[in-house]
Each structure stands twice: as structure tokens, then as C-alpha cells.
């Protein structure tokens, strides 16, 4: 079966069940299951995520981006330090980037205090980390392709029947 079409459908709707996908693509359940599994095994599909706007809940939530300056290690480059940074469960994304710092990581926490503790107690003491710059998120407008806190576009205002 056409794996590209399966990816298209799942990127539009990750909640689509195997039954849905089989129906849409005209494939057997087994075939869809197998292809999906293989895409997951090959790490082409790396996860299925829910985009939550915590601002609309009563739950305390703080996001921050942190630029981390770091020194590479002989023979390992930045990978060893990246591996350590990635271990922290509160780190939701981690990238090696060009620019003023080496890493950009995003952090999910409950309070500003937690962010400060993370930086002071966990991040800055890591050997090889030379400086950090913390940017607190003040308002979110777009997360993983989903817009929030801005007016939504008209979905479908077509005439019901046209030539």
C-alpha cells in the first residue's frame, strides 16, 4: 500500500483508527496495521501528540525557551551533552542550533520558580554548559501547526451547490 497516503491521513488526523484508515484507503486492516507499525518501527512516525492550550484551563503552566551555550567534547561533539539534556522529562524539545548559543530547548513547568530551579540546580551545573539565556513564553499563537488565541479562519463558506 501507499505509505505516503497513510502519512498524509495521519498527519491530518492522528486519531484515525486502523478501521478508519483501512476504509478510506480501501486496504485490509492487516495491511494498514502492518504499514503503520513499520512506519513506527523505522521512526518515520515518531509519536502522536495532543496540542493543549493550558491557558484555557485552571492548571498552572509555564513554558520557557532556554538558549544553552556549551562546549563540545573531544570525539563526541555535542551529542554527549545533548543526551544528558534530553534526559530531563521537563525538557519537551531540544535542538542544536546555529547562532548565539549551541542548544535551544523548550521547557514545560508549572511555575516560574520551577523553571528557575531547573536552570539553577540542574542545567547550569552540567559540565560543559557555559551559559544560559531563559525566555519565558508570554502568550502562544501557534503550536505544532495549530493556531491559538487568534481569530480562526472561516472554515467553509462555499455555496452548497455550484456549477
Amino acid at each position, binding site marked *: 500500500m501507499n505509505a505516503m*497516503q497513510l502519512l498524509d*491521513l495521519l498527519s491530518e488526523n492522528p486519531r484515525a483508527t486502523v478501521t478508519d484508515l483501512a476504509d*478510506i*484507503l*480501501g486496504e485490509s486492516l492487516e495491511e494498514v496495521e502492518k504499514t503503520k507499525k513499520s512506519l513506527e518501527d523505522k521512526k518515520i512516525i515518531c509519536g502522536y501528540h495532543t496540542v493543549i492550550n493550558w491557558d484555557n484551563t485552571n492548571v498552572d503552566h509555564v513554558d520557557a525557551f532556554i538558549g544553552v551555550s556549551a562546549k563540545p567534547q573531544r570525539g563526541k561533539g555535542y551529542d554527549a551533552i545533548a543526551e544528558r539534556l534530553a534526559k530531563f522529562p521537563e525538557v519537551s524539545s531540544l535542538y542544536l542550533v546555529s547562532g548565539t548559543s549551541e542548544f535551544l530547548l523548550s521547557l514545560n513547568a508549572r511555575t516560574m520558580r520551577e523553571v528557575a530551579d531547573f536552570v539553577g540546580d540542574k542545567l547550569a551545573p552540567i559540565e560543559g554548559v557555559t551559559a544560559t539565556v531563559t525566555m519565558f513564553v508570554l502568550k502562544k499563537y501557534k503550536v505544532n501547526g495549530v493556531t491559538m488565541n487568534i481569530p480562526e479562519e472561516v472554515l467553509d463558506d*462555499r455555496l*452548497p451547490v*455550484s*456549477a
Partner: protein
Amino acid sequence: MRNYDELLSSAAKQMRPSGIRRFFDLVSEMPECISLGVGEPDFQTPWDIRDAAVHSLETGRTKYTANAGLKELREEICHWLYRKYGLRYASREVLVTVGGSEAIDLAIRALVEPGDEVIIPEPCFVCYDPITTLTHGVPVPIAAKAENDFRITAEQIEKAITPKTKILVLGYPNNPTGAVLHHEDLEQIAAVLKDKDIIVLSDEIYSELTYGYRHESIAAFPGMRDKTIVINGFSKTYSMTGWRMGYAVGPEPLISAMTKIHQSCIMSAPTTSQYGSITALKDCDDDIEYMRRQYDIRRKYCVRKLNEMGLKTFEPRGAFYVFPNITGYGMTSDEFCEALLQEKHVAIIPGNAFGACGEGFARISYAYSIDHLREAMKRIEEFLKEHREVK
């Protein structure tokens, strides 16, 4: 009370009213219905195009353009047609119009004398016949056959040609059937027209929406460039129906005559839309590809579902319609579509709205999300089951 009927021109009165109109009224009274009746894409216009249009407004581009359209836009149209279909035109052979529809109107008005015949392969888009009538021309419908996958044949065209034939309309990829003409079909049609002074009005508005088949323009065939007016536009390719942007390309004398009419009735196509369209042609190939992929999934889904539930449906290779055969339920196309609407609140269009030979068929548009299509197909299946028992 004035008798307005006496005041109206006979040509205006004779124009065939759109077969879709009656159905539109029925559907409008049923806001809850699931429609599969649209003739336009569901995607938003790609943001880059909208951004370019907004920028043009911000920088004060709010005046008329040249009658034929912005020079830069016409040049980009030439590049695009060459890049896509190997067509070679100069910017003076391009006229930018208010949608493809205006280009069709201008071409017919520029060419047709009273009594001239216009060959129209049906089923087809609804405007060729009434515009021909309005210009006192004579529409000559010929019927594309289901057994030939709704491709009109050179033989059928040859039989319809008389000394009065002025125009042959070719609307492929086709609305409402989704049919495309193959290379050999076009070759044979070109051969039939070889020694004849007949102009081909090639409406290629769906040219970028083809599946597993690359569109070819008849104007690219030997000897055909001089007698073809190619019509295309932005509505379907870039999901820009509301922008009203189309164009015609063809031999300069024909394009200038069309431009003269356009000058009097339109002046110039909307300036904001023209600026957006430049960006569409230059930067939006990826958007076309994305939309085509989505349509393709839906197309295969609809064809399979309809055939499984017993409506014989050929696999269309273009546009975003499927055209199932609905005979076998003891109903005409009108009756079938009306019953489906009343009983299951699903709107599809009777095939005869696109020409008499569309009787026995219905047009289903798949320019909808897959979830919308699945719900509609479920209801159509229920409808068929209930009516099969009655039969």
C-alpha cells in the same frame, strides 16, 4: 403592471437556464443537508497568495491595470504554460479575465455570427450553450459516451461538423465527469480539424488536477496553435474561486478582438487578484501538489465506495468529480437526486444539468474532507438499500 417579458431580448429569453438553479433552491431550504454539490475546492487559498494580495493593497496598488492585465502577470502566465505544457505564447497573446467564464464568453462573442454552429461535447460545464444562444449562434451538442469513459471521439466531432461550424468546445479535464482526453484522442481530433477553419475553445481550467496522467493541451499539437484559444485560470488550481481570475491565450488577432470586448464590459480584471496571481504562478507548485494528493485519496475512496454499493462509476482521471450511473432504481436523475436530498439530506447534482446525455447519471463532488465524504457515502448506501427493497 408592465409586461417585462415583452421588453426582454429574445436571445436573453432563449438562453437555457442553469439546470443547477432549481436544485440550488431546494438545497438552500435545507441548511442541515450534507452537500456534495460544489464546483469549487475546499482548501483555503495558499497563504503566500493572500499575503501578496494584501501587500499590494498596503502599497497602494488600487487602480485599473492595463486592459489585458498586468504585464508581469501575463509574462508569468507564459512561463507557466511553457513550463507545464510546453505551450509557447508571448505576453501580447494573453488576456487576463474575470474567471475562466468571462474568457469563454469573450471567445464565443468574438467569433460567433448569427447562425454559426458551436459544437459542444456534453456532459459539460453549463455556460457554453447559453452564451452561444445569446450571440445568436447555434449550440450543437454531441454526447460523450459512458462506455468510452466520457471521452469525445474525433469521429463524433467529424460527423457534427458542417460548413457553418465555427467553434469546437473541448472542456477537459471535464466537469462533471472527470474525464480526460488521451494523447491519441487529441492527435485524432487535430487530424480531423487539419484543413478546416474551426477554432477550438479549449477550456483547461482543471488542467493541474489530474491523477496518474499528465495534462496535454491540444494547442501543443502540430498545426493547432493557430486555431486554438486556451482558457485556464486560478480558481481550481490554486483554490481561488472567489478571486475571479482566469485567462485566455491564443493567436494575437483573436486575443485582441476579445480584449476589445473585455475593455468595454470589464475594463480590467481585479487588480488585487492579479497581484495575488503572480505569486501563485511563481511560488505555489508545492501547494498544487499537496492539494492534488488530498484529492487523489478522496477520488479513490469515492470511486471504490460507489462501485461497492452498486452504482457503476468509472474512474475519473481529472478534476474533482465522480459521475456514477444511477439508473436501475426506477428514477430519473432529477427524481433520484431529489429523493436522496429529501430522505437522506445529501445533495448531489442530477447529470442532466450538464446536458441531456447526462440523464441517468449524477455528479458527486469530492472537494470535501474525507470525514464529510464518509458520512455522505454512508447515507447514500442506506438510501440505495432502502430503494432496492422497493424495486
